[in-house]
């Protein structure tokens, strides 16, 4: 339970871990947006190459990466089935047809693409969280959002809120564990029974948890005041993000990948060849 708190961070201290978190976030955004324009198998091949290479460079075990996909496995299967059976083709092209359901080569290929897209959508950000601590992400977001200060958006407060939330999650988890044990010791039944009863059984856990969270918040507010929060608008920073040569290399590598992917979309039509090939075999 406690491991959730630090996300999925996998501390291998690799080259990828040391990249500027802002760059990682931006590249990840580009990665996610671009994937919606990729609709060829060659494009997905590029994507998988990127994931494999980055995973190796990040020294993260593939097992962990697959585990992150496991979370959306149900979604992947569901979408694949829907796409296989509901892909609309003229009846004579269908391999199998019943009522409004039909299976066709186009449908199968389309479903495969959808599944790949979801898997890639999960793997990319997972890799980001494997190689970046939540604190780094907070710092990076604060820095990336800093232009919003011009329109009086409280970027700094947002970052402090995120930082405190990250700090408090493990503490509150521990507290939840403790309260649950204490109520179990008084005979509370928290793990069995029907859904309604189980929700009702959580009241003795949730109320003390809320009470304690408020009590902590009060003391925290005093502590923030005592530590001169908001004393000056010219706040300084202990941690400063500075891009290095590593980031340049990463940017170039990513650029090569993006260029390759985009070229593959606009120029070759391998998919048509694959399609024809399968048709020929049948």
């Amino acid at each position: 339970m406690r491991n959730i708190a630090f996300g999925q961070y996998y501390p291998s201290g690799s080259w990828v871990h040391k990249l500027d978190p802002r760059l990682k976030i931006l590249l990840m955004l580009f990665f996610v947006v671009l994937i919606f324009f990729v609709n060829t198998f060659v494009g997905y091949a590029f994507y998988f190459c990127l994931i494999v290479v980055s995973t190796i460079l990040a020294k993260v075990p593939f097992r962990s990466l697959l585990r992150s996909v496991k979370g959306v496995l149900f979604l992947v299967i569901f979408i694949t089935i829907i796409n296989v059976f509901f892909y609309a083709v003229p009846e004579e092209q269908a391999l199998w047809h019943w009522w409004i359901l039909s299976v066709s080569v186009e449908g199968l290929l389309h479903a495969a693409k959808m599944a790949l897209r979801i898997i890639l959508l999960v793997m990319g950000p997972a890799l980001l969280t494997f190689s970046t601590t939540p604190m780094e992400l907070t710092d990076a977001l604060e820095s990336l959002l800093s232009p919003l200060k011009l329109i009086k958006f409280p970027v700094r407060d947002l970052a402090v809120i995120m930082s405190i939330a990250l700090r408090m999650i493990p503490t509150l988890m521990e507290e939840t564990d403790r309260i649950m044990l204490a109520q179990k010791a008084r005979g509370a039944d928290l793990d069995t029974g029907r859904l309604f009863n189980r929700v009702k059984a959580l009241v003795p856990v949730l109320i003390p948890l809320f009470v304690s969270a408020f009590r902590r918040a009060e003391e925290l507010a005093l502590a923030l005041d005592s530590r001169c929060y908001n004393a000056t608008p010219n706040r300084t920073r202990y941690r400063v993000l500075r891009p290095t040569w590593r980031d340049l290399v990463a940017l170039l590598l990513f650029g090569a990948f993006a260029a390759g992917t985009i070229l593959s979309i606009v120029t070759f039509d391998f998919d048509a060849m694959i399609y024809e090939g399968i048709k020929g075999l049948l």
Partner: protein
Amino acid sequence: MPCITLDNVCYQYKTDDRPKVALDHASLSIDEGQFVVLLGSNGSGKSTLAKLLNGLLTPTSGKVTVYGDDTSVDEDEVIYRIRSTVGIVFQNPDNQMVASIIEDDIAFGPENLGVPRDEMKERVKWALESVGMWEYRTHTPERLSGGQKQRIAIAGILAMRPKVLVLDESTAMLDPRGRKEVLKVLHDLNREGLTVILITHHMDECIGADRAVVLERGKVAFDGTPTQLFSQEHNASSYGLELPEVARLALHLPSLGLPALSDPCDEEGLVESLLTLPPLSLKSAPKESTFDETVIDIGHLGYTYSPKTPYQHTALSDVTATIPKGQLVAVVGQTGSGKSTLMQHLNGLIKKQSGTLKVLDIDLDRRPNYKKLRFAVGMVFQYPEYQLFDETVAKDVAFGPCNAKVPKEEIDGLVRDALTNVGLNYDEVKDRSPFELSGGQKRRVALAGVLAMRPEILILDEPTAGLDPMGKQAILRLVDEWHRTVCPTVLMVSHDMETVARYADRALVLSGGKLLYDLTPRELFAKGEELDELGLEVPLAARISLRLQQHGWDIPVALTVEELLGYLEEVRHA
């Protein structure tokens, strides 16, 4: 030179019905470089005073001046100058940290003050080195002990370079080792010129301080040196405080025909003085009670958390012990020694991995009925008041019996008995919300919640943690009474060796998941310095009797000051 002055300060909290006076014409002037201990029982106005010192609160009437600045002035510049000059550390270190990495947390204050980055780095290093936590700078706070966390909180304040450090009951939640660590840091800082104002209800923290101030119902009731405070025995106890044991013993010297000590906390002087008496020989050792019927039988019990993962951690290994009916057993050991794991085995909150365990007639190897076990073995966790949840006290206390499916008509009786057993008036409290009670009352309600299940064995995890001395004594007296009446077998986890000496029939000492000693307190404390390595402090009476033994006195190891005084009385008769 006075750095902080309070001039006729009053403070009232605005509550719904009537204003509550927290400070009542208090005047105080604190000199630069002093180490001041501010004492008082709960509700004496200590914490209000702390918040007035750096302007978190401003007085209702009167004036607080910090280095010439009036704290009531409503100008940002003045407010932040005061806050960075007078830093406050609060009670619970967990609630004072804002970042998940220690060095980032320390930097929070300087960041807020706009300190340039190079200087900030120096300050973070200096602050962490001052509290001895520099090597932990890249850690997260989760794995640290209470004492270490509180030192981090102190460093977070130090990084703002305050001239005055105020600690608002910052030692209350710590175990004796943690308190020692924190006090050492405070004295070191004070020697380097920092003014320290330590708010506490532990009178022994006065030892080594320049000055002691006692608050009573919002008024300054005493202001002088610790020595003066300790020498007026009757006064000290009337403030709801408890004299340190060494002072209690020292105050009896004149009645033994010995000269009074100039410093009643000077243990060395006390021993020297006692050694001028003729050596005493006492043959009859106090007799220990005997017990026969076994209720808990633990055999080679072992437990490993998260086995076969990188987080694997052995919490218990090869623990064997039997506990007979009617004993009050103290369970002793540092944080992480396996105490909690062992206790949670006994009521089935942790399922046994290896070894054998039999509790009452329930064998944990034979598909035990865990529910039955939990009702037979009542377990009170640390700070049990944090688990109160229901609308009324009566309903909350009834939670356990209701879960046990006790017939409705019997529940009222159980609740009434339980509340009476914890010293509360059933008719007065039953319809009140548990959240509106005082801290000590909440603790009693929580204890009643477990007693109402009529357990045959009671397990208490530090039932007195965080209470003031009066509250602590009251709870311990209750436990002792239950032990003699409603629930004879009690296991009590405690860090306080004086409690162990005074109340326990037996002590189990755990270290690193192993059962190190299983002895009576008298046998245990006879080991003397061996216990220091375990971080266990031999109580004063035992320490002194061991010293006397070394000098040829033939007396048993005394467990309490009263017992030792009894022996010393014999000298006078002889």
